[in-house]
C-alpha cells in the first residue's frame, strides 16, 4: 500500500513539476496556435441585438464587438462562419471552430459537451445584471479557454 502511495504521489508530483516547465495548460487541438497563425474561426448564429447577421452575412452586434476587441488585443484575424446554432455547435464540439456566439439558452443541451466562457454584461444589457452573455468554446482547449476568460475578466467585465 505504501509503495503504491509513494509511486502514485511521485507520478503526480512529476506531472506538476513538468507542468511548470512549459506553457501550461495546453490545448488538445492547438486552438491557440491555430488562432495566432491562421486567425480565429468564429461561428455566429443570429441572436439580435447581440448577434445581428447582415444581408451579406456581415456579423455585428454587442457579442461580435467583444469578439473583435479580443481578436485585436491579441493580433488575431477573425473569420466569421454564419449558420444554424446546432450545426455550429456540432463543429465546435470537434474543435473545428474557435468559438460560437449567439443563441445560447441558459439550460443549453450542449452544456456539458462544450466549454463556456465567463459571463460578461453587454452594452445593451447594462445596467441590468440579468442579460449576461457567454460564448461557447471547444472542449479540451485549455489554453484557449483561459486566454479568452482572462481577457473577458480583465477588459470586458468592467466596461
Amino acid at each position, binding site marked *: *500500500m505504501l509503495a*503504491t*502511495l509513494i509511486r*502514485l*504521489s511521485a*507520478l*503526480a508530483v512529476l*506531472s*506538476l513539476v*513538468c*507542468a511548470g516547465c512549459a506553457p*501550461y*495548460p*495546453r*490545448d*488538445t487541438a*492547438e486552438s491557440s496556435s491555430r488562432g495566432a497563425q491562421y486567425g480565429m474561426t468564429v461561428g455566429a448564429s443570429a441572436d439580435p441585438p447581440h448577434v445581428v447577421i447582415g444581408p451579406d452575412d456581415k456579423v455585428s452586434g454587442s457579442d461580435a464587438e467583444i469578439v473583435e476587441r479580443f481578436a485585436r488585443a491579441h493580433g488575431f484575424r477573425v473569420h466569421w462562419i454564419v449558420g444554424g446554432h446546432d450545426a455550429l455547435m456540432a463543429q465546435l*464540439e470537434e*474543435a473545428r471552430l474557435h468559438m460560437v456566439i449567439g443563441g445560447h439558452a441558459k439550460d443549453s443541451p450542449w452544456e*456539458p*459537451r*462544450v*466549454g*463556456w466562457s*465567463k459571463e460578461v454584461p453587454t452594452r445593451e444589457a447594462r445596467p441590468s445584471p440579468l442579460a449576461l452573455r457567454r460564448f461557447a468554446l*471547444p*472542449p*479540451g482547449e*485549455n489554453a484557449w*479557454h*483561459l486566454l479568452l*476568460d*482572462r481577457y473577458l*475578466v*480583465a477588459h470586458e467585465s468592467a466596461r
Partner: protein
Amino acid sequence: MNVNRRPTPRALPQEQQAALHRAERLCTWTLFWMSLVSVMMYLALGGSQAMKTALIEDLLSMLPASAFLVASWFRRKGVDAEYVNGRERAFDVNFLISAVALTGVGLALVFESLHTLISATRPVVGSVRIGDAVIWQGWVMMAALAASAIPPIILGRKKLALAKALSLKPLRTDADVGRADWLTALAGIVGIAGIGFGFWWADAVAALVISGSILHDGATNLRGAVRDLHDAKPLALERDSTDPATSQLCDAISRLPWVEGCSVRLHEEGVHLSGMVYLQNVDLTAAQVQEVRDVARASSWRIDEIDVSPAGDTPALPSDHAQ
C-alpha cells in the same frame, strides 16, 4: 410452540471491546470527513471524468462506514423473541454491503473511463476567477483531489490495524474502500495534469488503470462475503489460509486425555466462530460435553457456541481437521 432462544453471545474480551469502540469512532469520523470531502469535490467539479468518478467513490465510501455503525448498534440488541439466534451476523451483512460498495466503485470506474475513451469525449476544464486573477480550473480540481486523499489514507491505516485486532472482515473491506478512494484521487491528479498537457484521454486512462485493482479487491471481498453467508470454512483476515482458530480448537480438544479423536466444523458469525465438534467417543457425559465447551472457549476469544456430538452422530469423513 416452545421456542428456545440461543444464550446471550459471549462478551468480547476487554481489548476487543475497546477496539470495537475505536472502530465505531473511526467510522463516525469517516462519515464526517468524507461528507466534507464530497462537498468540496462537488464544488471543484469540472468536466473531468476521473473527478466525477472520484466524487461517486467518495459518496460510496460512506456506505461501509454507515453500514458498520448500523450493524454495531443492531448487534448490541442481542437475542430476543424475534431474533432467537441473536444478531451476531449483523457484521456479515455489513461485510456483504461493503463488498458490494467496493465492487460498485470498481465497476463505475471501468464503465465511466471506457465510455469516455470510446466516445472520445474531450473533458471541459474551464477557468476559475479568484479576485482579479483567472486561473485554470484544473489547479483547483487537483488541489481538491489531493485534499480528498488525506482522510482515507489516515483512516484506512487505522481501520486496517483494528480489523486485524478484531478479525473483522467488514472493517477490512472498509479499509479497502478507503484505499480505492485515495488511489482514485491520486490517479485523478495525474489524469487532470495530463489534460493540461493536451492529452484528452489522460484522466480516463488513469481511471482505467486503477479500476482493475479496485475491481479485483471488490470481487475478492464479495466472494468472501458470499462464502461467509454460506457458513463456509472460516478463513484468516487476509483470506490466504484457514483461520488458525480452527486448528487451535482441534489441538486443544485432542489434548483432553479421554478424547478418542475429533473433527470440527466451524462457521463465522460476525466476530465470533461457532459450530460443531465431532468426537470419536461413543458415549459422552454431560460433564464431558461441558468440558469440551470450556476448552473450546479457552482456545480463542472468538469461539462462541459449540455443540458436541458423539461418534454415532459423526458424519462420514473425510474431514480437513480430523485428529
